């Protein structure tokens, strides 16, 4: 199982590779937009930092990654593609240029987030390794078959998966499966119209809607205040043996907009845990593995995550409420 980490520039890419990432994903800016991008996120994070790189830097990043045997995935997963009615079809043209520039930099895979993008690229005869973004909300075998027929090579499963479902889907060996390792969304990301972190500034900051406290009314009477929507699951290190055994191709860490030093810590811990398991898979019981992993996580991680309330792929009160 590979470890896939986010990068936003050369130094963060190097940081992730040195921390043990086997794969990177990264996006670039596009001149046709001011604040948004083709990458499925805004160009800037809340601190005003650019979370995309230039194409010349992308080439350097890919060369460095390939020298280290690291696979580079190019984010072109804007979750929307429509008919371009602008003069000269400049948005569609800009998207094609974006893709061609990524391929020219020798990226290994294109991450796409809308049916229209794969249809367009196929029509234009553009060949590559294609990854279907989590925006497709793939949760079942028939959707994987559909995506395979469209030309995808890999699929990023929904955040909202149970371990037994991942194991079953991986067993069909249809496409490479990528699953989320750390952090997540409370909602089905691909259907979520409460999108945030799309180049807001501190002045117009939205926050994270699913994590907020809400006053709850029933029949116009307030009955309480609670984090009613918050069901995000955060950590999967205890599930690493099960994910490896199931045949998952890649474990994805998110955080292109986060501090690269924080993501570096996350990458290091996941890399250590994966390598510890791979070193002696038959000797180490799952319980011993979990004990070893918990001994290497920093205190802040253990305090906020090792209380069994936010575990990915393990039974919890949140997972029990999955429909």
């Amino acid at each position, binding site marked *: 199982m590979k470890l896939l980490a986010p990068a936003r520039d050369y130094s963060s890419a190097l940081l992730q590779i040195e921390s043990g990432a086997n794969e990177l994903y990264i996006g670039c800016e596009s001149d046709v937009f001011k604040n948004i991008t083709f990458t499925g996120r805004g160009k800037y994070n809340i601190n005003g930092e650019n979370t995309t790189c230039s194409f010349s830097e992308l080439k350097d990043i890919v060369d460095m990654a390939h020298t280290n045997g690291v696979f580079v995935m190019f984010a072109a997963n804007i979750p*929307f593609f*429509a008919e371009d009615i602008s003069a000269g079809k400049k948005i569609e043209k800009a998207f094609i240029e974006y893709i061609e520039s990524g391929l020219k930099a020798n990226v290994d895979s294109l991450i796409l987030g809308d049916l*229209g993008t794969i249809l367009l690229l196929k029509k234009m005869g553009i060949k590559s390794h294609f990854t279907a973004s989590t925006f497709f909300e793939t*949760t079942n075998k028939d959707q994987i078959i559909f995506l395979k027929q469209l030309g995808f090579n890999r699929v990023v499963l929904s955040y909202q998966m149970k371990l037994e479902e991942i194991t079953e889907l991986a067993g069909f060996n249809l496409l490479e499966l990528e699953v989320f390792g750390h952090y997540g969304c409370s*909602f089905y990301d691909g259907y979520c119209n409460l999108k945030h972190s799309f180049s807001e500034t501190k002045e117009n900051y939205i926050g994270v809607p699913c994590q*907020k406290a809400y006053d709850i*009314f029933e029949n116009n009477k307030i009955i309480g205040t609670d984090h009613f929507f918050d069901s995000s699951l955060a950590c999967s290190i205890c599930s690493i043996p099960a994910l490896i055994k199931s045949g998952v191709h890649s474990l994805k860490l998110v955080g292109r907009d986060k501090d690269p030093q924080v993501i570096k810590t996350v990458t290091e811990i996941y890399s250590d845990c994966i390598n510890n398991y791979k070193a002696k898979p038959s000797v180490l019981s799952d319980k011993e593995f979990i004990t070893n992993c918990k001994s290497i996580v920093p205190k802040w991680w253990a305090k906020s995550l090792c209380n069994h309330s936010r575990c990915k792929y393990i039974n919890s009160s949140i997972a*029990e409420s999955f429909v």
Partner: protein
Amino acid sequence: MKKGVYIRNFEIVPDFLRTNTKCIDYIAIGNYGCTKAVPSTDKIITLTKELHDQNISLHYISPKVTQSNFEEEYNRVEELCKSNITISVNDWGLLYRLCNQGRNKKSVVYLGRLLSKSLKDWYWSNIFFNGESNSVKNYFYQNSFSQQLKIDLLKEMGVSGIEVSIREDSETSFEKITDNGLGIIGYADDIILALSRACPFLRFKTDNRFVDRGCKNCHKSFQLRLHSNGGINNYPHFQVTGNLITERNTYETKKPYLYDIIFANPE
């Protein structure tokens, strides 16, 4: 344009039929997010026959499915297709299998609201696109199925049209979709904001603050408002029904001719 009502609670359909069937061509039942919240196939088919006597047609909304409940829902939809019930599908995998495995050719299948989108549905789209050019804004405010390649794909799959939340900014793109021979079903009263697999009604089912909780009452709604503004940009007033989060739609279309059916909520 035909008119319909979307009734979330199947149990009240008989009462509704006794009092409210004038000027109604369709009743929609079903759910976007949970297969447990939809009635049995037998009940749906029985209702279809009762409605037929009153010249009312039935429309079934098929939920998003996972690997765990796929077969159960597929079998239901396949059976309903045999009864010529109009169906909207909210899962690509289910739609793919339905269109590939020789469903009843007379059955009418629409792409559900979870799968058709406009970025204008993003509640804070005004903030994200604020600095962008008008041509960029116009592009993103369309419905994504205005793209010719997608229209061609849907027609190849035998899909009759798409479902949408009725929005003024997207209606120009709806015209392109209908000009290309696909139909549009519009929902007038609400806009889908989000769907969670972790149903809050189940998460809070042992919480005594909530009188109506758990699966048996999931058709009832809670209303949510942000507890503390804290200088954060305006949040919608949410309506939560089961695992679906919506907000009220206040736009009244001036182009009803665009829509095959317009569904409203009876409440």
